[in-house]
């Protein structure tokens, strides 16, 4: 593989978390993250819902199959991967908790990124605008959004606690995708998205 092109900052952060071994990227889109992992000699594979995305990935030499986070993780055996990645997709799954459980069954670690629904712009639009929020990370109208299970960073931490999952790393990003280092209460307000690395406890 040639050197991968520059990728979105949040994807680069995920890519940096994966050191080596086997990785599964669920919802791999056009394969940008996958290509960056393969360029680092990670044995990386992808699952993508859109057939156009799958075909584009495979045509550029990336191992990708058409599939769905909600249904297709069941096929994989325990501990098949070192990392299972779900970037900006958890909020669009039918059963986020079950998907997380499957990710941590199939992989030794799970890496999850998602938009923060407690970001101040979101709060502002609901409280003062009286309208469903539309922000750079949540660009859809209420009636055509694929996001059916939005959560805040604190909500996600709560779920990890309930599931007994260890948070190995949590990186909160501002609206320019720069990591911010603030106490939890503030990062839940200022952070536009977050990247978590989880591990079974």
């Amino acid at each position, binding site marked *: 593989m040639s050197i991968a092109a520059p990728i979105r900052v949040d994807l680069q952060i995920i890519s940096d978390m994966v050191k080596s071994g086997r990785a599964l990227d669920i919802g791999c889109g056009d394969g940008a993250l996958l290509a960056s992992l393969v360029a680092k000699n990670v044995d990386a594979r992808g699952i993508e819902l859109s057939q156009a995305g799958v*075909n584009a*990935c495979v045509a550029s*030499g990336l*191992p990708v199959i058409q599939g769905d986070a909600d249904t*297709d993780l069941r*096929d*994989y*055996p325990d501990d098949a991967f070192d990392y299972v990645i779900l970037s900006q997709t958890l909020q669009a799954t039918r059963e986020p908790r079950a998907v997380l459980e499957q990710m941590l069954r199939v992989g030794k670690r799970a890496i999850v990124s998602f938009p923060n629904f407690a970001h101040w712009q979101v709060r502002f639009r609901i409280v003062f605008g009286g309208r469903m929020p539309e922000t750079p990370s949540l660009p859809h109208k209420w009636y055509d959004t694929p996001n059916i299970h939005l959560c805040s960073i604190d909500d996600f931490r709560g779920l990890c606690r309930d599931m007994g999952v260890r948070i190995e790393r949590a990186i909160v990003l501002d609206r320019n995708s720069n990591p911010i280092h603030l106490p939890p209460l503030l990062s839940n307000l200022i952070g536009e998205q977050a990247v978590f690395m989880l591990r079974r406890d």
Partner: protein
Amino acid sequence: MLDELQDDLSDAERKALAKCRHAVLGVERPMRLDCGVDLGPFRVAYQTYGTLNAAKSNAVLVCHALTGDQFVADTNPVTGKPGWWESLIGPGKVLDPERYFIICANVLSGCMGTTGPLARDPATGQYWNLRFPVVTVADMVRAQVALIDHLGIEQLFCVIGGSMGGMQVLEWAASYPKRVFAAVPIATAARHSAQNIAFHEVGRQAIMADPEWKGGDYRLHGTVPERGLAVARMTAHITYLSEQALQRKFGRNLQNRNALGFGFDADFQVESYLRHQGSTFVDRFDANSYLYITRAMDYFDLAGAHGGVLANAFKGSPTRFCLISFTSDWLFPTRENRAIVHALNAAAANVSFVEVETDKGHDAFLLDEPEMFRTLGGFLKGAGVARGLK
């Protein structure tokens, strides 16, 4: 040296063997078939394109479908038509002989030079006809393994094929995983479905109902079960197309007439087309071979051979897979291909899977499908880098 097996070749076999290579295998030790019979010596007729590199790492085995043959990318000496996969294989194509050493062998029980029911039983000197042992897809692959050994190739860079060719690819990957670097099963299934067995049975019954078939001994009687074989082909041909493609091509158009004929001539273009498909087929294919090869497909059940769990067939597989299906293929539909993908996932194998949108039905894998070529091009490029091909 064509008569080393003391055969008197059919016309098609003679023409085929004059234009391709062949190997006589199973001489020292016969090959044990799934049915328990030891077969040997036997002949495998094969064609090659390109050159094997010094590291012997660029060999690609192409597995042909039910009525295909070894003339995958050069003029067929029996029909005079271009090779059946010239869309994919040739200079500047996805499988370029400049880069790969491409091998395609006529399957065991075929009628283009490889040993089958047309041959003579070395033990009795009589034509095998229906006394030829019933072979399986695994037996076809065993014969190919013997050929690859004979060619001195330890590992194939890629094994590729569609339909029954895809079944052979799966069998290769399951039974000889270390000898297959990359596997490309296209428009196929891990087991033949009840509907597909049913269609094959109609074809076989048509052949056996033809009085010229003579219990399979037509060659002794100087007859050919042309009508039966043509009907078998007509039925099968419908299953290779899609309803949309038939409608688009023919609709209810009449053939060389302006009004219905109120008789049973070919009023409709689609009838005329099918009759043509049937009559040209009998010029190039042998009826008994058709019985044997359809049977081999019916018997194929990879999960059945691995304790009922398909994933067991691929446990620990080092092979990288690329599967392709077509939206309008109802003979080997996407769900059959997806079942293989699920099993490969369950075995944590390296797998890519693409469904190509087309209305051309099962036959799409033989046609000009740019999406399929892009997929294969990308997959083979990635696999080539991993294999260290220049």
